[in-house]
């Protein structure tokens, strides 16, 4: 019975992916892509990777979808027709994707059985971190450098988005509130954020021992913040505000600071003294969550288009 479900899920994923690629309707493709992200999240849940499933649904489905929708609305609002790719270019991309897919399929099928895995090492070293969730342990202890760079990359992306602002608007705020805000949206923006904040706090806290963590919680917080800004309950902040910039940098900065302290107290960059490993990891996670939330929210808000008030 579960095989039937899995086959239907895989078939749905492939059909939806083909639809996203072949449809000519920009907005329809984006909405199908959001559906694709949610379905892919279900697929990860079927593979018992609940952490990946949550992240995929939150980022792949929700946040990326919103980014794309805003970009599409921006293009449509300017009356720019996206240039149709010439036929040879289109074929080149299709052939490239096909080769990558075949290569990946070959690699997966060529895996020795059982596949090489560090899962046993992770499980046996889990006690040293004081955590119960091996994914969080891998993200924040065993492979902390990857996580650190990942968080810095999204801040670089935000700087890239900001740099699209025109000179007089640099340091200003984005205009998110639509001309007329429908009543139901205001209602939702008043009702939902308290629940969202509770769920985000829960996600960070439970992430130490169960599926959950900074990216998922940060995305939920960012979504709540965007909802409030879109409904016009609070204006978007000025991007030159010192407090905001501090919030953006606080997570990675604390991560780097604790990383360097590792040289003094634990014998290397990004290693933690075993006795206080868990409190340190939770502190980094909390700071990272706030930074991720601010970064993702501002990424969706887009380049500042209002001049800063003097």
């Amino acid at each position, binding site marked *: 019975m579960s095989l039937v479900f899995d086959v239907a899920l895989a078939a749905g994923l492939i059909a939806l992916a083909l639809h996203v690629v072949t449809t000519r309707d920009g907005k329809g493709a984006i909405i199908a892509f959001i559906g694709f992200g949610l379905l892919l999240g279900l697929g990860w849940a079927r593979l018992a990777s609940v952490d990946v499933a949550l992240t995929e649904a939150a980022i792949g489905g929700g946040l990326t979808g919103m980014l794309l929708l805003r970009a599409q609305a921006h293009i449509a609002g300017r009356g720019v027709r996206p240039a149709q790719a010439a036929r040879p270019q289109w074929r080149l991309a299709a052939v490239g994707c096909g080769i990558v897919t075949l290569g990946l399929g070959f690699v997966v099928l060529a895996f020795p059985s059982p596949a090489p895995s560090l899962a046993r090492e992770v499980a046996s070293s889990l006690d040293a971190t004081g955590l119960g969730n091996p994914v969080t342990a891998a993200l924040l202890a065993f492979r902390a450098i990857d996580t650190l760079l990942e968080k810095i990359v999204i801040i670089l992306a935000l700087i890239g988005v900001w740099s699209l602002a025109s000179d007089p608007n640099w340091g200003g705020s984005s205009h998110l509130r639509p001309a007329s805000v*429908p009543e139901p*949206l205001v209602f939702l923006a008043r009702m939902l954020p308290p*629940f969202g904040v509770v769920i985000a706090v829960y996600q960070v806290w439970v992430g130490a021992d169960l599926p959950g963590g900074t990216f998922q919680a940060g995305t939920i917080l960012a979504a709540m913040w965007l909802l409030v800004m879109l409904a016009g309950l609070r204006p978007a902040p000025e991007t030159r505000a010192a407090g905001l910039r501090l919030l953006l940098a606080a997570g990675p900065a604390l991560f780097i600071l604790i990383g360097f302290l590792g040289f003094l107290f634990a014998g290397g960059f990004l290693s933690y003294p075993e006795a206080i490993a868990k409190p340190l990891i939770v502190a980094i996670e909390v700071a990272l969550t706030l930074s991720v939330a601010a970064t993702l929210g501002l990424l969706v808000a887009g380049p500042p288009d209002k001049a800063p008030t003097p």
Partner: protein
Amino acid sequence: MISLADGFTLAFVSAGALLFLAGTLGLLRFPDTLSRLHALSKADNLGLGLIVVGLLPQAETIAGGVKLICIWLLAQLSAATASQLIAGIAARRKPDA
């Protein structure tokens, strides 16, 4: 012989799945936006509600059951808001619909 709790779950989840099927059919076949929304929100609210009620006896802890109910309530809130927003746009585009 299935237990009473399992039978209850089977009946309610099946009824919920049937409502989702009917809702999807309505979404695909109904002629205008408002009736399509009606079909969709029926599936979202009642269908998901029936599935949650059906799953309640399977919850291992009380907290687990409360979480299921919270999911249903949150889905209700978002589905109702989304329906209102879409209906508002549809009504503005075509005042006589």
